[in-house]
């Protein structure tokens, strides 16, 4: 496994983790843009643009793009998050050039008026689809409260209203500003022909005009979390279970404690074999009780997700709080740490041997930190974590106490809390 790097004169960076024995090649363009980079008037634009990129360029129609990907046997898709927009394809190695060329050409989309109008309907359907699914918007609302005035407060999809209000000109302007070559990483994993990758990039991306892109981190700006706990209730009478999302502060993506935080969240709230699992899931008291750590450029959080009977939710949340408090008071012991280290190490080795999965580590890692971490680097890091590291995370970022919580489900609104009606 070898790491390779190259930078074009216009600023486009090319990174690859080359595994000669791999059977496939994965290629992706990772654009350093997402919902956090939108203004209020642009809410939902990053994700909408991701869809529009598949609608074609001046020379390629949407049908042609779809036919070409299918003709390569590519597994091609895209995603948008708070901080990244990624376009990717997994192909057999002999299709690397064609996949790279097609993705590269798509990065300069036509953004036609009629496509914009049709695709707007698809985006609205996607919003409705998620609104019909658990946790019925509790996650977006919780993020909005937790992050407050921080740019990460904005949901990725936007709302029906924000999408309907978007003009195509705003998308063209956003694309011009955010899809500068200096703001894009071309990443590849698997059986990569690196020289060929660089040549493709020169040919298809070499004439992209670079623009200065503003700093994304919020220095000294609004901090997430606040000083007081909040509770909001979204009333969804047709729902069977009550869903709860709870967020508290955690280490950010540039904090060395983020690895210990991931180990801690596995100990406390992994979907099997964790403290929450044995206390609540194994006993059949809840459908779900889990916790994970998520980090961003300049912020981090522990997110707890619960699904249970509506009448039990207050009690369940109190017991989760108690699990978190006990961990902070008593710490964790060596056998529990060892067990979870092995569990995560096993998981990472398995994920690491699939190039199409590795792309989503290598690409975003470079986009966020400008550095490369091999699977072996991650395994070494986790192997060296101690009970003291976990204790330090618990002391710096206690999971009990201050948190933003949102419930969604059949539970009637309590007049003593900040209730909201379901957006329909």
């Amino acid at each position, binding site marked *: 496994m070898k790491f390779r790097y190259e930078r074009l004169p216009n600023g486009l960076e090319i990174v690859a983790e080359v595994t000669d*024995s*791999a*059977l*496939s090649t994965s290629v992706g363009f990772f654009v350093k843009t997402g919902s956090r980079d939108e203004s209020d008037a642009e809410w939902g634009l990053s994700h909408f643009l991701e869809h529009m990129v598949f609608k074609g360029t001046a020379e390629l129609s949407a*049908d042609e793009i*779809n*036919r070409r*990907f*299918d*003709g*390569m*046997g*590519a*597994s*091609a898709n895209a995603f948008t998050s708070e901080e990244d927009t990624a376009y990717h394809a*997994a*192909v*057999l190695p002999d299709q690397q050039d064609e996949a790279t060329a097609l993705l590269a050409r798509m990065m300069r989309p036509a953004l036609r008026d009629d496509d914009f109008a*049709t*695709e707007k*309907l*698809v985006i*609205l*359907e*996607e919003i*409705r*689809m998620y609104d*019909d*699914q*658990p946790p019925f918007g509790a996650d977006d609302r919780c993020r909005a409260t937790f992050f407050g005035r921080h740019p990460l407060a904005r949901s990725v999809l936007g709302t029906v209203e924000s999408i309907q209000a978007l003009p195509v000109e705003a998308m063209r302007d956003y694309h011009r500003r955010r899809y500068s070559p200096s703001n894009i990483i071309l990443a590849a994993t698997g059986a990569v022909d690196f020289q060929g990758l660089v040549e493709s990039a020169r040919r298809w991306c070499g004439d992209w005009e670079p623009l200065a892109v503003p700093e994304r981190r919020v220095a000294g700006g609004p901090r997430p979390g606040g000083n007081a706990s909040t509770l909001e209730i979204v009333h969804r*009478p*047709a*729902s*069977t*279970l009550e869903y709860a999302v709870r967020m508290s502060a955690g280490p950010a993506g540039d904090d060395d404690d983020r690895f210990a935080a991931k180990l801690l969240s596995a100990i406390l709230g992994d979907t*099997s*074999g964790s403290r929450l699992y044995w206390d609540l899931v*194994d*006993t*059949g*008291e809840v*459908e*779900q009780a889990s916790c994970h750590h998520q980090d961003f450029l300049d912020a981090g959080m522990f997110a707890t997700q619960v*699904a*249970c*009977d509506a009448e039990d939710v207050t009690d369940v949340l109190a017991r989760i709080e108690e699990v978190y408090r006990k961990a902070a008071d008593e710490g964790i012991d060596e056998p529990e740490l*060892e*067990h*979870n280290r*092995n*569990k995560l*190490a*096993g998981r990472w*080795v*398995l994920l690491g*041997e*699939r*190039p*199409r999965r590795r792309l989503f580590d290598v690409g975003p890692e470079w986009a966020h930190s400008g550095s490369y971490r091999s699977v072996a680097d991650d395994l070494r890091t986790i192997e060296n974590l101690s009970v003291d590291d976990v204790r330090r995370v618990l002391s710096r970022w206690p999971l009990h106490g201050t948190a933003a919580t949102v419930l969604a489900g059949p539970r009637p609104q309590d007049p003593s809390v900040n209730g909201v009606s379901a957006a*329909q």
Partner: protein
Amino acid sequence: MKQSLFSTTLDNGIVLLGEDLPGLESVAIAFHTPAGAIHDGPGRCGLATLSGEMMLRGAGGRSSRQIVEKLEGSGVQWAQSVSTSHASFAGAMVAKQLAVALPIYADILRRPDLPDDELEPARQMVLQNLAGTEDDPAHRVMSTLRQLHYPHPWGMPSEGITVDVEGIGLDSVREFVAANVRPQGTIIAVAGRIDWDDVVRRIETLFGDWTIGGGATVTAGNRGPRSRHVPHDSQQTHIALAWSVPPYRRDESYEASAALSVLGGGSSSRLFSEVRERRGLCYSVSAGYHTLRDAATAVCYSGTSAARAQETLDVMLAEIQRLPGTIEPAELDLVKARAKSALVMQQESSAARAGWIAKQWYHLGSVRSLAEELARYDSLTVASVEAWLAANPPTGLTVVSLGREPLEVPDEVSV
């Protein structure tokens, strides 16, 4: 492509399959025992799922917690599931941990405690999961579709029915496990960095003297009505359609799945192009192939806002009806390219390959090599797919919708 496939049958009937994938560091193993939901029995829908859950709750002297901690502490990613035909216990791990994991799986299959004090927690867990599926509209519409379309009990939901699960006693669980978790009909598949001779030795030691008999045959009952609307307070209406196609073990299943792939397999497929790309009617639309051993269905799905659901259904039906006689050579080429690439990439996942070789054995009684599987796709022609479509046009559709308002469904959809 060089491929190392192995198989052997133990004296007690267990089929052991292996594939050596030397590029990998991992091994995946899956135990498929014939304790699937078709054996639930009347009024006990969910018995197989509850039994599968109970098997993990103490075995061979280890408690439920000790089992999980031993597996996870060895870096084993474990999974347990119950399908129509099988109860399955699986694990993926770094190769050297296979020796640690195998005896635990042997305990789960051969020596489950099925303790009295774990029944209620296990039942509550199954009921919680059922409540969760009530909140998943896409799952509900597909589950209803299977119930109506397949003859009883093949379409029954393996996750169970609340009222049935509430009434199942421990005796039923014990009887179910004794009758259905047995060597005859069990398939063990292992793929990844394996030493085949070593695997055979270990499996023979752990399972060779397992000699439970039994096993019931299930007779096919009636199918449900042709269409149903499930009232649900959601913004979107979910639409699911099914018609019968040949099961995987029949040679013409390749023609059938190729035709379905043209209809709704990739982003260049007809449904995606017409329903989503051109009309913007929905976010999700697809067609796929779902097979049991003796029956299979073509399944189409879409979810869209209530006001546009009728148009979506009408366009889907029109595309299905338009399919025979119109397949272009270029469309079939795309199907072949996608299938070939997916098969090769599957080799990068030990878990995917363990699942695949087990599936092949269950359906065919043998494992086809990758070369043979690819050759079958290569030999497809427009003429062969069209000939199959002409003889088997989509007809007798089952149509299910879920949402606020029912849709108008034609009495009989045929071409």
